[in-house]
């Protein structure tokens, strides 16, 4: 029922626009909607609960080589929305009248049709709250449940049509020990399973036992390190903007040295954008069909993310990313290290579950700084000894993913984004854990 409402809202605006455009005009629309529950917990109880129903439409108007876009919110009812869309259309026509031709406009008028409707099962709010409060009994739980259907659509005057529905939820939460240490857990799914959730809580309870040990304070220096997938995901996240064809061409990419061929990463490291996997639609908001692209092949830069605009400007071939030129379905090839043998392989060093607040301290050398966070431990001779005081690292990705990279785990973890700025995100990264010879800690 709800799926049909959003589909009709999209289709009726599309139909209405087809009748409105003048000769010599083209349009495209990107539709973005969700109906979400956000239930926030603190101390194992509900701190803040909200429900959000929102529809946004980005209308792009093209007249010859001139183009501009407007994003507007809709009600979902054509009787109300067409007036808003009509006003946006007029505003864009006025704007185009004062714009010069855009020399970098590359309009691919090849029409596509793509449709994917994923179903799922999510609990009602009262059942969910009851489950979580029960599982949190005796625990200091804090976090957020975010769930519900997400809708994305694309249509154009030249006949492209994409429709994508996913139903999913994530519970991103932490369990706190009385001493301030915590373990962080994310449960993301389309089929909510109370038993699986209970297993996550049970594992969290077990990890809390380790966190009760006295903290070990380490002095700054270099330590052998294992980065669990969540921590490795934060680090890999720093690479995301580096593959942009525009960032590389304008010398703002952190992967500039890789691009210039003056350095390489480890031959163990291969990274791809796999549009054919993940949870995002196969099409992007600019109307391109996303491609699979190998970005780093055994340590060497093998590809870039090229939008249509960059393709025209820099002479590359577009590969289906939108103007942001960011990946959304990254996959890292696994290694040979069994996850069960990680502590043995680490020997003596740091087991880091999560990293936090990463930023480039020197973009030109891909030097990144950030903090350890949540369950991170000092390990001696393959045994967890104690949680550590938070440490700041500052090291180059060319070192971390280069000579320092000793092994990747055989098993990989699918990390689904829990970002909810303005809308729920569906970006994914499939990745292993990383064993490093050393990481440099500074504070």
């Amino acid at each position, binding site marked *: 029922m709800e799926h049909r409402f959003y589909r009709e809202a999209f289709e009726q605006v599309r139909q209405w626009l087809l009748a409105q455009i003048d000769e010599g005009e083209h349009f495209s629309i990107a539709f973005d909607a969700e109906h979400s529950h956000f239930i926030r917990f603190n101390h194992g109880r509900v701190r803040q609960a*909200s429900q959000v129903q929102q529809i946004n439409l980005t209308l792009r108007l093209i007249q010859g080589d001139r183009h501009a876009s407007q994003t507007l919110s809709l009600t979902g009812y054509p009787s109300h929305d067409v007036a808003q869309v009509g006003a946006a259309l007029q505003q864009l026509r006025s704007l185009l009248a004062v714009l010069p031709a855009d020399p970098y406009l590359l309009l691919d008028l090849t029409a596509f049709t793509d449709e994917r409707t994923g179903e799922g099962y999510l609990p009602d709010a009262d059942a969910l709250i009851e489950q979580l409060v029960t599982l949190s009994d005796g625990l200091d739980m804090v976090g957020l449940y975010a769930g519900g259907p997400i809708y994305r659509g694309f249509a154009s005057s030249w006949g492209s049509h994409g429709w994508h529905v996913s139903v999913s939820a994530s519970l991103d939460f932490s369990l706190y020990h009385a001493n301030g240490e915590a373990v962080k857990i994310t449960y993301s799914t389309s089929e909510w399973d109370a038993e699986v959730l209970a297993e996550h809580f049970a594992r969290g309870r077990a990890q809390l036992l380790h966190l009760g040990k006295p903290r070990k304070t380490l002095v700054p220096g270099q330590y052998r390190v294992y980065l669990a997938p969540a921590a490795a995901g934060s680090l890999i996240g720093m690479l995301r903007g580096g593959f942009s064809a525009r960032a590389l061409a304008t010398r*703002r990419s952190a992967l500039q040295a890789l691009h210039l061929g003056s350095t390489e990463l480890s031959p163990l490291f291969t990274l791809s954008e796999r549009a054919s996997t993940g949870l995002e639609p196969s099409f992007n908001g600019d109307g391109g069909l996303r491609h699979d692209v190998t970005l780093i092949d055994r340590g060497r830069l093998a590809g870039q993310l090229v939008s249509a605009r960059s393709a025209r400007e820099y002479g590359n071939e577009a590969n289906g990313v939108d103007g942001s030129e960011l990946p959304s379905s990254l996959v890292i090839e696994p290694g040979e290290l069994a996850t069960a043998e990680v502590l043995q392989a680490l020997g003596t060093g740091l087991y880091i579950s999560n990293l936090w607040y990463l930023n480039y301290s020197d973009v030109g050398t891909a030097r990144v700084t950030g903090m350890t966070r949540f369950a991170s431990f000092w390990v001696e001779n393959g045994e967890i000894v104690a949680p550590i005081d938070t440490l700041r690292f500052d090291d180059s990705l060319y070192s971390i993913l280069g000579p320092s990279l000793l092994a990747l785990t055989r098993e990989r973890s699918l990390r689904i984004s829990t970002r909810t700025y303005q809308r729920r995100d569906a970006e994914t990264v499939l990745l292993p854990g990383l064993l490093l010879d050393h990481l440099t800690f500074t504070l």
Partner: protein
Amino acid sequence: MLDALPSVSTLLARFVQRHAGAGRLHSLRYVQQDTMGLSVSRNIIDPPRLQHNAGVMLCVRINGNEAFAATSDLTERGLTQAFEQAQSLATAMGAHALLKLPSVQGEAMLARYASPGADLPLPDASVWLDILRVESARVPAHQQLVNWSAGLRVTDRHQLYLDSVGSEIHTHQRVFHPRLEVTAFDGRHSQRRSWSFSRQGGPELVRQSGFIGHIEQVADQALQLLAAPNTPSGERDVLLMPDQMILQIHESIGHPLEMDRILGDERNFAGTSFVTPDMFGSYQYGSPLLNVSFDPDITDEAASYGHDDEGSPAHKHLLIEGGVLKRPLGGALSQSRSGLPGVANSRACDWNRPPIDRMANLNLEPGDQDLAQMIGNIEHGILMATNRSWSIDQARNKFQFGCEWGQLIENGQLTKVVRNPNYRGISAQFWRKLSAVGDTSTFEVLGTPNCGKGEPNQSITVGHATPACVFQQIDVFGGQA
């Protein structure tokens, strides 16, 4: 875009009147944001982007349980549906709510706030594009200048807050965000230099701010940085200019003083704080030169307003006075939870997120030294300007920040330019090293549009006004050679 505000206001007022008596509807907040984003990159106009975003957030309280429902369906049907959803959610919380909250009490507030010049019509996009094209064209032809852009974003934000006792608060903020950016590249390394701010006001702000013609200096400094040596490592006195001070204040005073962090709400995402409730009133946060205010009254600062998003009237308060911690950044709810005084800082980024404790205008009060005096008193130091890198631990204590521009200071004189200037420290110690505070001649009203926090996530505009400041014996370092 259709001017929907008057008809929506009438619809919302009627809706609140109809449901106010039943004791369930607590408040309603309508937000409409219109944004124009224009930029010119290497003398070519980037595709313009316009935005019109509108929706409403309803808040209900049932048996002490508070719940919210937001919708972009601005029809009677949409409001009714959201009201039902919020009630259903409040009921679903049963006996499991962390807080039991009372119904609205007190008298109705009727108020209006508007940015200076906000009611004047904006010039057409073509006027702005001409300005941006002229700025872009000022960048000299130089083979090492490989990228540059001039941009402007203007946001008109209308908010209408209504509650069940009859309050009606209109807020109209118009925020300008001009920016300039130049990248220089020598075949191996690149350096980026930029300039930007966020402030409320009218179109004259763009000219008054020094935007016109400034890109030539930005380009020149990018080239200087490219040719400069790396910043040397070691302890030095650091002179932070206002466009770096705002980051320092934001990360290591603003966030740690947010009461919802101190109460643990943010432990899963944004983090906690090294500040604990018992510190207020006695903790020596910084040197006696440190005076920090929550000040919603500076008319052109980015987050000035009359009332926050829960309807609390906003007034100036000192949070840190003479270096001593006085009060947190906590709105009405946090004040009742903690028993501490606070400020009117319950804010939501948009109609689709509920309010939480946020920074608004968080300022460092001016001192008594001009720039020449501050430089003259430094024997071995460095001037740093314009933030480019920031990272701080989840308790807001161990930080590492980097700037675009560095210039060494030796024996009271500014000397050579250095690139990649970074410094690190610990908040609890850093502010005690504050040794000089610039006077009003060094004071700048700035701000940022991107402060992230909250679950679900919210990115909000905050204002920071500050003079330049000197900190003694700070751990400074550069990039890799």
